[in-house]
C-alpha cells in the first residue's frame, strides 16, 4: 500500500516537473519561431490526431517553424531539455504515426512548403508541400510526379516519404521510394546530413518508410517521369469476385503492365453511386478500372490483349464515351474511401498488401468477418499491386464498437500475413498496426530495427512507441483503453 502511494507520488511529481519544464520551454520556443507560431492552450487539441480516428491524444505544445534553421534550433532546444517531440506534415497519416501518444511536442512542418529547384528530371521541395502542388507546378511540362496517393490533394511530401506512400500508379511507376533521389535530413542529435544522389553508399533508403523515427526530412529531391503520349481507360464488370481476380492475373499474363488497375467491390460501388462521387458504375459484384499508357501504338496493342483477357475471364468491357466519362470513373474511384460515409462516417482503413493471386480468398474472409462483427465493410483494391483496402465502419463514440472494429481489422491483417502478405502496403505501421510487427517479424528482426533506431535517436525523444513494438526495457505511456488495446496484448 505504502509502495503504491510512493510510486503514485513519484509519478505525480514527475508529471508536475514536466509541466513546469514545458511552461519554461514555451518562452524559449516563442523566441525561436515567433509567438504567433507556438500553439499552447486549448487549440493544441486540434493536433491530437491525424487521419487515424480511434485514438486522440492532446499534445502539450504545437510549434510551426518557418525555415530549416528554425527547425534545427527547435530540435537543439528540445534535445537540451530532454523533451519528447514528433514531426507532422498535413496530419493525414492513416496509421496514427503523428498521434502524440507520449505527450510529445508536435512540430508541424506545413510552413516548409517551397519548391526550391527544378532541373533535368529532378525537383527539390520542402517537406510541408502538398503532393498535388508538384504536378500543378509541372502542368505545362512534359514531366510528372508519379506517386499519387488518394490523399494527394493534402498529404505532404514529408509524410509521403515517411510512409512510402503508394497510390494507383505503382504497378508501372513504383512507390514514393522509387521517386526519391536525395534527402536533406536533420538527425536527432541536431546535425544535418545531405544524402543520396549516388548509387553507392546511399542511406536514403532507411528514411523512406521510417515514419519519423530516425530524423526529420528538411528537403527532398524527387525524380520525375516523362508523361506518356497516350493514356487509355477501360472498365470491366464481373458477376463474381473470382472472375475479377482471375482477370487481374490474366491481364499481367498477357504481357501487359497496366499503369493502374483498381478493383471495386459491390459495397464500394453502391456507396460511390449514392454520394457526390456518383460515376454511373454498373452495380455488379466487382469492377476493374484499368489504365494503360505509353506510346499510342503500343497502348492500342495492349488494349486488344487486355480486352481479350477480360472476356476470357467472363468480364464485360465498358469503354468511356468521352473524356468527361473517363474522368468521372476515376473520380469515383478516388471517392471510394470518403463515400463510405454512406454506411458510416467513421471507418478504419486497412491496407494489408497480399499477393494478387490470393484476392478471392481474402475477400471471402473479409465478408465473413463483416458478418461476424456486424460491421459494414467495403473493399477497394489496388489490383495492380495487391494492396487491399477493406473499410470497416464503426461508431467512434462507442468504445466497444471501436474495439470491435479494431479486432475485425486485426483478424483481417493476420490473415493477410498468413497468405504471404505484409501488414501495411502504404499507410504505415504507426500506432495502428504496431502489434503486427511481432507477427510478421522475428525477435531478431525487431532487435536490429531497434538498434538502428537507437543509434539515431540516442536520447529516446523522437516519436517513440510507434512503428517498432517496445522492447522489454522500454516504457511506453498508455493513455486509454483503446491505446492499450493497440499497443499491448497478444496477437
Amino acid at each position: 500500500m505504502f509502495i503504491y502511494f510512493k510510486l503514485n507520488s513519484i509519478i505525480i511529481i514527475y508529471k508536475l516537473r514536466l509541466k513546469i519544464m514545458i511552461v519554461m520551454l514555451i518562452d524559449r520556443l516563442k523566441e525561436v519561431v515567433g509567438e504567433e507560431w507556438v500553439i499552447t492552450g486549448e487549440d493544441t487539441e486540434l493536433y491530437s490526431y491525424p487521419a487515424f480516428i480511434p485514438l486522440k491524444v492532446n499534445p502539450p505544445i504545437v510549434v510551426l517553424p518557418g525555415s530549416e534553421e528554425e527547425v534545427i534550433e527547435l530540435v537543439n532546444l528540445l534535445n537540451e531539455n530532454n523533451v519528447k517531440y514528433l514531426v507532422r506534415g498535413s496530419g493525414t497519416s492513416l496509421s496514427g504515426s503523428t498521434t502524440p501518444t507520449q505527450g510529445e511536442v508536435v512540430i508541424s512542418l506545413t510552413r516548409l512548403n517551397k519548391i526550391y529547384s527544378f532541373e533535368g528530371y529532378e525537383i527539390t521541395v520542402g517537406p510541408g508541400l502538398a503532393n498535388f502542388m508538384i504536378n500543378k507546378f509541372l502542368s505545362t511540362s512534359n514531366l510528372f510526379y508519379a506517386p499519387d496517393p488518394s490523399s494527394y490533394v493534402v498529404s505532404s511530401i514529408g509524410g509521403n516519404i515517411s510512409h512510402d506512400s503508394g497510390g494507383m500508379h505503382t504497378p508501372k511507376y513504383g512507390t514514393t521510394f522509387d521517386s526519391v533521389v536525395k534527402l536533406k535530413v536533420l538527425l536527432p542529435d541536431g546535425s544535418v546530413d545531405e544524402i543520396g544522389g549516388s548509387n553507392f553508399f546511399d542511406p536514403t533508403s532507411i528514411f523512406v518508410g521510417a515514419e519519423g523515427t530516425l530524423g526529420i526530412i528538411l528537403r527532398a529531391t524527387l525524380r520525375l517521369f516523362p508523361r506518356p503520349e497516350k493514356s487509355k481507360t477501360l472498365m470491366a464488370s464481373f458477376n463474381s469476385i473470382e472472375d475479377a481476380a482471375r482477370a487481374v492475373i490474366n491481364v499481367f499474363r498477357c504481357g501487359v503492365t497496366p499503369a493502374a488497375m483498381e478493383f471495386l467491390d459491390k459495397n464500394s460501388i453502391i456507396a460511390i453511386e449514392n454520394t457526390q462521387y456518383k460515376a454511373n458504375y454498373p452495380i455488379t459484384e466487382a469492377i476493374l478500372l484499368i489504365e494503360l499508357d505509353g506510346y499510342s501504338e503500343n497502348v492500342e496493342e495492349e488494349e486488344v490483349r487486355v480486352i481479350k483477357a477480360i472476356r476470357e475471364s467472363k468480364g464485360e468491357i465498358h469503354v468511356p464515351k468521352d473524356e468527361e466519362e473517363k474522368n468521372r470513373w476515376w473520380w469515383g474511384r478516388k471517392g471510394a474511401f470518403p463515400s463510405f460515409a454512406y454506411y458510416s462516417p467513421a471507418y478504419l482503413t486497412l491496407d494489408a498488401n497480399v499477393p494478387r493471386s490470393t484476392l478471392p480468398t481474402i475477400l471471402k474472409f473479409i465478408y465473413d468477418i463483416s458478418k461476424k462483427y456486424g460491421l459494414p465493410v467495403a473493399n477497394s483494391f489496388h489490383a495492380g499491386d495487391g494492396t487491399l483496402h477493406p473499410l470497416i465502419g464503426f461508431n467512434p463514440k462507442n468504445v466497444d464498437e471501436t474495439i470491435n472494429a479494431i479486432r475485425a481489422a486485426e483478424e483481417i491483417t493476420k490473415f493477410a500475413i498468413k497468405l504471404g502478405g505484409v501488414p501495411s502496403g502504404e499507410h504505415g505501421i504507426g500506432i495502428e498496426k504496431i502489434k503486427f510487427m511481432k507477427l510478421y517479424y522475428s525477435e531478431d528482426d525487431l532487435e536490429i530495427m531497434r538498434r538502428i533506431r537507437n543509434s539515431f535517436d540516442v536520447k529516446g525523444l523522437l516519436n517513440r512507441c510507434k512503428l517498432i513494438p517496445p522492447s522489454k526495457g522500454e516504457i511506453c505511456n498508455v493513455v486509454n483503453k483503446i491505446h492499450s488495446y493497440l499497443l499491448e496484448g497478444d496477437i
Partner: protein
Amino acid sequence: MYNLSLKLTDMCTHCGFCLETCPTYVVTRNEVHSPRGRIEAIRAGINSIGFQTCMYCRLCETACPAGVKYGQIIIPFRKSDLKKVIIEKLLENPKLFSKVLKYTNKIHHPDMERFRKFIKDYEITEPLENNDEGDIILFPGCIESILFRKTVENAFKLLSKRYKVRILNGCCGLAHISNGNYEGAKKLAEKLSREVNGKKVVTLQSNCAAFMKEYKELFGIEINSYDFAEFLIKESIEVPRINDTFTIHYPCHAYRQGLTKYIKELALRLGVKISEMEDPYFECGAGGDYWLSHPKLSDLVMKAKKEKIDKSGVKKVIVTNSVCALAIRSMGYEVFHLADLIFQSQ
C-alpha cells in the same frame, strides 16, 4: 443551433481534403485556421480563435468528399460585435449607408484609413432608385449600389430594353449569416420575399445570387433569383461582341453554387478572350467585411491571390461581386463587371 451544428459535424472524417482550398490555411499553414481544425474545435468544445478567422468563403465545401455542410456548422460559433452590428444595419439601408460613409470618410481612424485604401471619396454615391412597379427586380446589392453606380446604371439600361425593371436596394443577408446572425439573415430573406412578390430577381452580386438560392434550405423561403450572367444566358439576351482579353475571377459562393459557368459563357458571348489565372475561384481576400475586421490575414490572402492573378498575364479582370472588385482593384488591376463590358464599346 449548436446541437444541429454538432450533429452535422458527424459527417467529417478528418481527412483534410479541405485544407488546401481554405485561404486562411493556405496563408498560415496552421490547423487552427483550417475548416478541419474549426470542425474539430466544435466537436471538442473548444472556443477557438479559428472560428473568427474564417472568411466564410465555403470553398472547403467544394473539396469535402463527405459533403460536410461547413457553412451551416460554423454559423452559431461566429461572434458578432458592435462594429459588425452597425455595419449590418447600414448594409440593409444603402441610402443611409452612403450618407454615413460620406461623413465618416473624413474621420481619422484606423478602420477609415483602411477603408480609404480601397475606396476613393468620389466613388461614394447615393443608390440609383426608381418607382416603377416593374416585371422584374434588379437587386444591385448592398455596396454595389453606392460604390459602383455606373455598373448599376449599365445593368438597368440593358434590362430596361426588354423588361420593366424595378430597382430594389437592400441586403441579401449574407453578411449577417457570416457573422452568425441567423435571425437577422432570415428577417432579410422574409422581407425580400415580400417585396419581390414572386417576381424574378436579378442581382449584380454573384455571391448574393448564390446566397438567395440557399434561402430555401436555410429558411424555407423561395425566391426566383438569378445572377446577372445567369439571367442573360437563360433569357437569351443578346450582347455585343467586344473582342478584348480579360481574366476572370469567380466569386467564392458563386463557384460553390455552380454559377460560374454562366459568367464564363456570357464572357465568351461577349467575345472576350479569356486568359485564365491560377485557381480563378480562390478567395479574393475581401471576405465580406473581413478586410476591415482582419486586416493582416486579409492582406496575406490578397497577396496570394495577386500571385495567382499575375499568372494570367493580363491586367483586366472580370469581377461580378463588389467587395471582390475592391480587393482586386487594390492589387493594381482594372476591374469590370459584365454589365460594364456590354456598354464598353459605346
